[in-house]
């Protein structure tokens, strides 16, 4: 199976929260970091601790989430490594004014040539990397648990109750319903073509050549989906979809804990705005002591 349900019912405070309050909290955190463009580790670090705390409360089994984390770590390593440590130019690094002396240097040369450069690690760069990692993790750590801890059956109603139309909201549910069907069709087609000697590892050449090599998989799966789509439309029409405002059988209701949670999100958002725009705190920051120490 290519797709398996990641969600599992768990008796945790996180899963008892209304999904709307979780999405609102996530939005508050992302907007709180990005709108005032916060890069100050004194603000990022406490937020990071809060989000780690929430992640632990979700009690997701490590084996379920291992691959996702691996992917996230690789991504962050590349972004941070390439941006912050190596180049130090452009992108998010523009917030950093590096005037500190190098702590140590790593020469990176292709052996036997003079191609390469000397990587200078400075205290500013180290702080920049730490801040950027925590900044990204604070958002990722809130988003990653969602597929594991939010019942796929309530995505539709969640969006409906946040003001999205019946039809668009139900599309969310439909997508979850047909994802495994699509995955199954793909896996049958892969088997069918492999039995005809097709090998996926032999995807060579440029983009066009690769796409041509993928046609034996893409065409049948697209055809299957089209046929399925037509029948699903008939089936939905025959059960009166879209003829009147619909009832959503699954009810959502805010409990006191949801108000507290959303309040916390809002507080983070406002705090960050106030720090940045009232007190002028939030730019990239390195402790002066560390800078003084590094500069000898």
């Amino acid at each position, binding site marked *: 199976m290519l797709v398996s349900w990641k969600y599992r019912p768990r008796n945790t405070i996180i899963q008892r929260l209304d999904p709307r309050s979780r999405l609102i909290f996530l939005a508050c955190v992302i907007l709180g970091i990005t709108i005032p463009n916060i890069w100050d580790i004194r603000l990022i670090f406490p937020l990071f601790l809060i989000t780690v705390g929430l992640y632990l409360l979700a009690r997701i089994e490590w084996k379920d989430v291992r691959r996702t984390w691996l992917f996230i770590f690789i991504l962050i390593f590349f972004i941070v490594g390439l941006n912050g440590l190596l180049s130090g130019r452009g992108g998010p690094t523009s917030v950093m004014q590096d005037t500190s002396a190098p702590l140590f240097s790593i020469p990176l040369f292709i052996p036997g040539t003079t191609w390469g450069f000397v990587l200078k690690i400075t205290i500013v760069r180290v702080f920049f990397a730490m801040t950027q990692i925590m900044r990204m993790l604070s958002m990722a750590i809130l988003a990653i648990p969602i597929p594991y801890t939010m019942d796929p059956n309530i995505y539709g109603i969640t969006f409906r109750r946040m003001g999205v139309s019946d039809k668009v909201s139900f599309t969310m549910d439909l997508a979850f*319903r047909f994802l495994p069907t699509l995955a199954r069709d793909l896996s049958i087609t892969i*088997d069918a073509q492999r039995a*005809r000697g097709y*090998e996926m590892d032999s995807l060579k050449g440029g983009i066009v050549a690769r796409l041509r090599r993928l046609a034996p998989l893409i065409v*049948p799966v697209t055809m299957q989906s089209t046929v399925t789509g037509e029948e699903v439309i008939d089936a939905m029409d025959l059960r*009166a979809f879209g003829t009147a405002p619909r009832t959503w*059988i699954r009810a959502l209701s805010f409990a006191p804990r949801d108000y507290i949670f959303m309040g916390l999100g809002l507080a983070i958002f406002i705090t960050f705005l106030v720090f940045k725009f009232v007190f002028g705190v939030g730019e990239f920051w390195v402790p002066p002591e560390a800078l003084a120490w590094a500069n000898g």
Partner: protein
Amino acid sequence: MADAPLVVENLSFQYRTRPEVAIKDISFELHQGEMLLIAGSSGCGKTTLARCINGLIPRSYRGKREGSIRLNGKEIADMPLADVAQVVGTLLQDPERQIVASNVFSEIAFGPENLGLPRDEIIRRIDQVLKRLKIEYLRDRETFNLSGGEKQKVALAGLLVMQPSILLLDEPLASLDPASAHEALEIFRGLADEGTTIILIEHRVEDAISARPDRLMYMEDGQVRYLGGIEKLPPEIDHHKVKLPASWVVERIRALGERMDYVPPAKLKTDSDPLVVFNHVNFGYNEEKQVLYDINFQINRGDLIAVLGPNGAGKSTLVKHAIGLLKPTAGQVLVEGKDTRKMSVAQVARVLGYVFQSPTHMLFAPTVKEELAFGPQNLEFPKAAIDKSVRESVETVNLNGLEEYPPLGLSFGQQKRTTIAAVLAMQSKIMVLDEPTAGQDYANYTRFMDAMCGATERKKSLLAENFAATMFITHDIDLAVTYANRVLIVSAGRLVADGRPEDVLKDFDLLERCRVRPSSLLRLNLEMFSQTGSFMPAEKLAQYLP
């Protein structure tokens, strides 16, 4: 007197996109609790009639409609679809495509939700319908993981919850194994007895009659050729187009004086060195889920093997081991003496060619010719050999003149033949067919199977001519009776029987344990075995009766 639930008068319809009339001048009336069986081959107009009755025509499918359909006295064209949906519940052929929610409870709730019913009422109705169909245990399950039979019950529950007075069942048995199909028919009968009017569209009349329909409507070319009781069917009903019980076919053949040219499959040979060997094969996707247990058998030259067993028994898993798509977790599979663990799927493909159930899962090329060249190219045949192989396989399955056509634009039967040709072109030694008859109506599938397996006194069958052995996975026990010289029965991951059809299939206790239902043709063959000495189709059996 109250109006009849359904009155159809002089109904005709022509799709806007087609030149010919789809149905012509159809009239009938149904009463409460009546069950009508509608039979006919594809293109006879039964699907169009169904779409007229459930209101998809004229709403979703445009065209010219004449005549009238009244539901409880009201003309259907004047009713909003939401109202029609509460009178006529339609069960589509493939429940997989009818189920729109990820969870059983949400699925059943879907219709009443769309009607905007109050939440308490919806929950009350769901509980009622779960109880009525005895599927309370499925309430919180995910729909994707249900078995075919369970999916259909859930789809049916999703209709019954809207409390329709008429149920329209469009080939409801097509995706079920025979045992589940039989259960479904029992449920339909029960619903009719409780007062639901039922229209059952099915070309497998033999199976459908076990639901004891009150009347049969037989359609051809968009017209009703027969409408009446099921007992004494007139000769207009063509036994080549709908599947009738074997004894009925025998009577018809005798009355019509037809003769059939049939040569039974060659007897089993055991002396050759085997092409494929299964040696204590075990397989599981993980430690908790074992699928195959200690499978041992060989495929020899001259074998025509039918693999029988219910859905989920492990038939496909077993065959996937033969073609190298799966490797055993213990034991070994040898293909021409080599362990499949040491072979790529492409290497195994030179020996075993596999035709998947649905042509749309494998057809992709812009022309038939390119489609057929795909396999040989992957196997790195030289150019000249590819051309020759493609030309010969086009010839063999009779696709002449269609070489430059897009395979996806062909009819279903032609697509099916294209998939066979695609495997032929690879010059594999063993042909493996997964559910060769699925998705085709009776007339098409008998024609297809005759073209593949039919032999005459002078000429071997297409499969026997081109392959050293053939293996087909099927639900259709009649295929095993007519076309196989060896039967394997797989049940709960174990190979429980392996032998000649006449030896294996006479053990009805075994068949019942393995959820394989004996057909009328099997019963008749067993009764007459002392005279015939081998299994054969009903048409041939007729010649042995005095």
